[in-house]
């Protein structure tokens, strides 16, 4: 699988902190009622696949958003709780959390994207975000292309979780390393 599980786990930790949910109390219903939009180059994103598989397992609804070149219809078939919405503003209207992705230009090989058109349709900028005041958390796994998928104003703005995501990467990866180096848990023990 093209996945990035440690990123999805640190993203989950960031989301739980935002919602005020303690990690130890997480159940498959914890994110019920939460809608999150992942927007951008989903075709080439391991981050998008891992989050799209993880978050619905905790009850979240995940909207995948982007142009057909970067978001094929089959994307919604990889797991439950996923929908595709081509119109970013319609997706934003339903979302409390958004996750922006950069266009991975190094992987486009032969795909042609009109970047001016892309900015108009899919950029997270202050003017667009201000029209959706219910959006409380703006995420991005980095690296960011400022001025492309997200403006500096939004990336550094009050709803940005980007720095928090980076710092959450440290304890999550420490935990993963500790777990990998620990003896296997006994059968029947909580995972």
């Amino acid at each position, binding site marked *: *699988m093209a996945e990035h599980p440690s990123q999805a786990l640190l993203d989950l930790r960031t989301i739980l902190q935002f919602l005020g949910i303690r990690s130890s109390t997480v159940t498959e219903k914890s994110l019920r009622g939460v809608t999150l939009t992942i927007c951008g180059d989903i075709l080439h994103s391991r981050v998008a*696949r891992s989050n799209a598989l993880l978050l619905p397992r905790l009850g979240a609804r995940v909207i995948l958003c982007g142009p057909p070149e970067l978001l094929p219809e*089959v994307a919604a*078939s*990889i797991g439950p709780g996923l929908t595709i919405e081509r119109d970013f503003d319609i997706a934003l209207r339903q979302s409390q959390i958004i996750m922006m992705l950069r266009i991975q230009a190094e992987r486009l090989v*032969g795909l042609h994207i009109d970047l001016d058109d892309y900015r108009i349709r899919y950029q997270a900028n202050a003017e667009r975000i201000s029209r959706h005041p219910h959006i409380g958390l703006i995420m991005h796994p980095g690296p960011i292309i400022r001025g492309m998928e997200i403006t500096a104003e939004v990336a550094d703005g009050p709803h940005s979780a980007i720095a928090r995501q980076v710092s959450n990467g440290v304890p999550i990866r420490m935990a993963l390393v500790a777990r990998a180096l620990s003896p296997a848990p006994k059968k029947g023990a909580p995972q």
Partner: protein
Amino acid sequence: MSPATTASPKPIIIRGGRIIDPATGLDAPRDLLLRDGKIAAIESPGRIKAPGAEIIDAKGMIVAPGLIDIHIHLREPGQGYKETIATGTAAAAAGGFTTVCAMPNTIPVNDTPEITRWMQAPERGAAVRVFPIAAATRGSLGEALTDYAALKEAGAVAVTDDGKPILGDSIMLEALRAAAKLGLPVIQHAEDTRLTGGCSMNAGALAFRLGLRGMPVEAESGLVERDIALLKQVKNGHLHVAHLSTKKALDAVRDARKQGLHVTCEVTPHHFALTEERIGLYDTNAKMNPPLRAESDRAAMIEGLLDGTIDAIATDHAPHAAHEKEQEFDRAPNGITGLETALGLAIQVLHIQHKMPLAKVLALLTIRPAQTLALKPQGTLAPGAPADVVLFDPTEKWTFHAVDSRSKSKNTPFDGCELQGRVRATISEGCVVFGQ
């Protein structure tokens, strides 16, 4: 051209076997006498007397015409680290093949009579007969035709730009016309490469999950349909579709046949035995072009083999060195070896799972490929035909281990695979070139 032998071998009597020769419809206990590189006699058990002949006991065995593979890559000239004509044909012999057709994507490309002759020279040490297939255009660049008459004269049995499909309408039409005048087939690797840039597997949900670019089935079927449309404009033209892999392309071939067009096609063992799921977690030994497809396409290949639309089983044996396959999936080269597993897979999948009579399975590996590329007099055990014979035990179960392969390369998805039907001896023009 002929197997690496010096003196004329001793006569051989193959005694006590069940002879299946799909070309003549024979399926009965018979003894076979091989002399001077030819089938000398085929008689009821015990009737052949030939003093001084070597006797091969074929009790419990099927004795059939040596198998014919019309699509393999021998990598010589130019890429001897992957395979040589000697090692590739040794693998062919181990798989029961006595005739192989070598694709022209060598380095340099086989686009001249000189290279075509070089490949057939005794110095190459071929264990079995090699028929070169020459490039259809110079350098396989799709721009200017090669000299078909001279290539045919030098021994080429068909023309193709395999791996670099001929996309231009006018050059493909020219190729079909020039080949038709000489009675040569034009073989097309049907892939519209304008639709497959950066692709490394079949398009679909699995490709998305794996994060790989997928080739749509239309990239294959679209070019087959285009080629068929061009063939309609050519008198006596013959189009042969290499390694067909999709239902849509097979349907196009079936329709063209109904219209009376001379369109033939082949399918590989991996396309009737495996689906894209075999890629698992990026196993580059399951990467080839055309890619492994969905189950519905695999089922269509079986149907096409059963109903006769598919003319031949061909392996597309494509050896690559371990260091080339051991890299990221989308960077690894396309292709797998296949000569030593073809018969076992055909028996396992077609005969055992799908109840295809053995004579029909063998026809797809002998007389039908011979007819497809007009390789007379190969493909039969009729007296006077070349003494090309395979002996195999149809009931023996065995495990294929890539490490034991005679090929220089070990890139196969069938390593460790249990197969039924094991080659016991292969005889090429009267010489035992493989025996176990």
